[in-house]
């Protein structure tokens, strides 16, 4: 039997290993109808396992667009 994975339209496996958000612990099933009722948005609270805060070890915001290994942030894994 297949094992469902946490789903998130915003974060994929290419983000830093230390990035976390609620959707990584809550295994919701996306509703394809959702965006008939409003446009896409991102209300997600991100945090870093190193700092446990919304700011990474480098003092910058934790966000999937910047928390990527090989990117400009030296703290990413």
């Amino acid at each position, binding site marked *: 039997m297949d094992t469902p994975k946490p789903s998130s339209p915003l974060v994929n496996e290419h983000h830093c290993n230390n990035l976390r958000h*609620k959707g990584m*612990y809550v295994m*919701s099933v996306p509703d394809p109808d959702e965006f008939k009722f409003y446009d*896409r948005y*991102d209300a997600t609270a991100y945090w870093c*396992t190193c700092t446990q805060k919304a700011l990474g070890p480098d003092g*910058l915001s934790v966000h999937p667009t910047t928390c990527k290994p090989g990117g400009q942030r030296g703290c990413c894994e």
Partner: protein
Amino acid sequence: MDSRAPGPGAGRRAPENAHDRIPDPGSRSPQVAEVQAPARPPQHPKYPWPEKPRLIGTRISRLDGPLKVSGRAKYSYDIARPGMLYGRILRSPHAHARLKSIDAAAAEKAPGVKALLITIKPGDKILYPGEEIGALAAATEQQAADALRLIKLEWDVLPALATVEQAMRPEAPQVFTPANTRRGTAQEDGDLAAGFTAAAHIVEGTYSTQVQTHTSLETHGSVCEWNGDNLTAWVSTQAVHGTREGFAAGLKIPQANVRVITEFMGGGFGSKFGPDIQGLLCARVAKAANAPVKMMLDRKEEHLVTGNRPSAFARVRAGVAADGKLTAFDAQTWGTGGAGAGSDYPLPYIYTFPNRRRTHTDVYINAGQQRAMRAPGHPQGCFVTEVLMDELADRIRMDPMEFRIRNLPAPGPNAMWAKYFPMGAERINWKSRHVTGDPAPGPIKRGLGCSANRWGGAGQGARAHCEITADGSVVMRCGTQDIGTGNRTIMAMVVAETLGLEVSQVTIEIGDSNHPFAPGSGGSTTAAAVMPAMRVTAGKARDALFERMAPQLGVPIEQISIGVGTVVVSPSTRDSLPDGPAAARSGQPPASRSISWRDACRLLGTVPVSVDGQWERGLSAGGTSGVQFAEVEVDIETGITKVKKIVCVQDCGLIVDLKTAETQCYGGIISGLNYAVFEERILDRNTANMVNPNMEWYHMAGPSDIPEIDVVLVDQPERGVIGIGEPPAVATAAAVANAIRNATGVTLRSIPITPDKLLAELQRAGGTN
């Protein structure tokens, strides 16, 4: 009175033998027929929901209610371990400062202190009040607090940003890198210019919502105890497995070395999904002290650092055609999630603006960071849109409810507002609503308002283990947690339903990461993730019991079924034929015989039934809709609003426990009431320190503030289980705001609607009417 209303598929539960009796699509109402996946009915599960349930859908009180009201339920806050120390965290008194020096020598030598950790060094910056500097553990709470005061800190205090206005000023100091703001969502659809050209009326305004803190009654925190390299942590968390992972990641130890226990939990509302800093500090000082440590936060710490709902601002321009159809929506939005955190939200919400544009900006200030909070983003988007809708309805002189129905998206089981609005209107006596501004004489003005909400609530992935022993005991273990919603109770209902027992005959063991994996409780997904696992696992246990019984009874397994408190052995088809052997012996068709549950289980001997199961498709779904109506009285001399009544019409798929589902609505509505007229994090504009970090000046509804709440739950059994934790919290504030507008005739585009705001607006408008 039974608050449950039949849904579009009432009486059409997914049948036991769904593969034999697939519901005829042609028998559905037109609304159901338009449903898109995954709102579709279940897909032939092996253990479908019963067609005629005995317990599911009834009103069953919480199994742990007596434990809670008698104080016997042990929350993380109540855990006491032998030799346990008490931990406290050293926090920044400033919103923005650089540490010059720190001297903890006196604290280390203070009476009772067993361990002390400092986590920042001179030269490091802190970015919000309450940010962590270190922690210590001492023999008593008082010794821990005394020792903290002995730590000498020297700071360079830096300019702080206390408001979004301060942060967005061109001359604002750059506190955050690369900037104090971050460009967020940018969307455009349709032809905005054409939309405004088609508009007969245009409304322009700026709307805002405040920062709201979670204010869970049980604060964040844990008790951590090491046994060698193995950590046991009793944590107030919404995710025992997620917190195990968080401890392992934060402490760089294997997850196999961590056990997280949350037997009872006093609320989280989205703010408790990991160990947090305080959990890791607790584990570290416990390790250093070689003793268990309790580190639970106090109320001030809760307000400062454990999350909040971001503020929201929206500068909106919207148009409506003469026929009442929305034509255009243009908005610039912003808000703050604190230091480095986002603030986005859905806008416009639910109603169809064919031509629209929106840009959002996250604004960072020197304040504690946001976290997920009960329907993240939705109350903000709902408030802005729904107040705007009332203003637009007035422009075209249309009833606000009719105006909403005219502009709804296409209906479906996950979009039932067009049906629910009239249902709610009936119960609030909408036909008694006057036009905006109560014309009645005197200072007390009455008004009605309405609004709509939606949510997902589809979960998956839960696993469970079930044992049935020879004495008839049934134990179901699952690594989920009951965060106060009644999860433990509805789990027992499903297991008892499946095995023909009463809920009191089922033992539910949850809140332990040593149990089979279950996801965290967030996004209203728990019921939809866990109830299918209960149904499947109990069903497999039942089948395993039958397999063990069949050879001992000398009958095929197909002849064994579940009764009420019994196992029923039916006659074989051959026996029941008029010319069958049994009939030939007695002259009568053989009857079924019932074996008591205990006698049936006795056949198990010394080896129990022991089976694993997990969530399977076809028993749960996602996508809920609801509406709320509010009735208020406003004293225009004092500015005080009294919410008299809230009507809530809400669906959540298959209702498992009518009582706990209703209480979810009560809790959500009270949360929304607080959002409408009471709660607000207030920061000093000069220091960015919170001036009301307590439960005295951070206002919340008391018992006398809570209105009559009339909940109508719409049953949609054919959809399977859907969560209900968040949707009822979304629409209340907007309905209350619109009712206040209807009462007073003035438009408050900012919540909370406090007496000072209302009086100022009334004065600006020259009074009511």
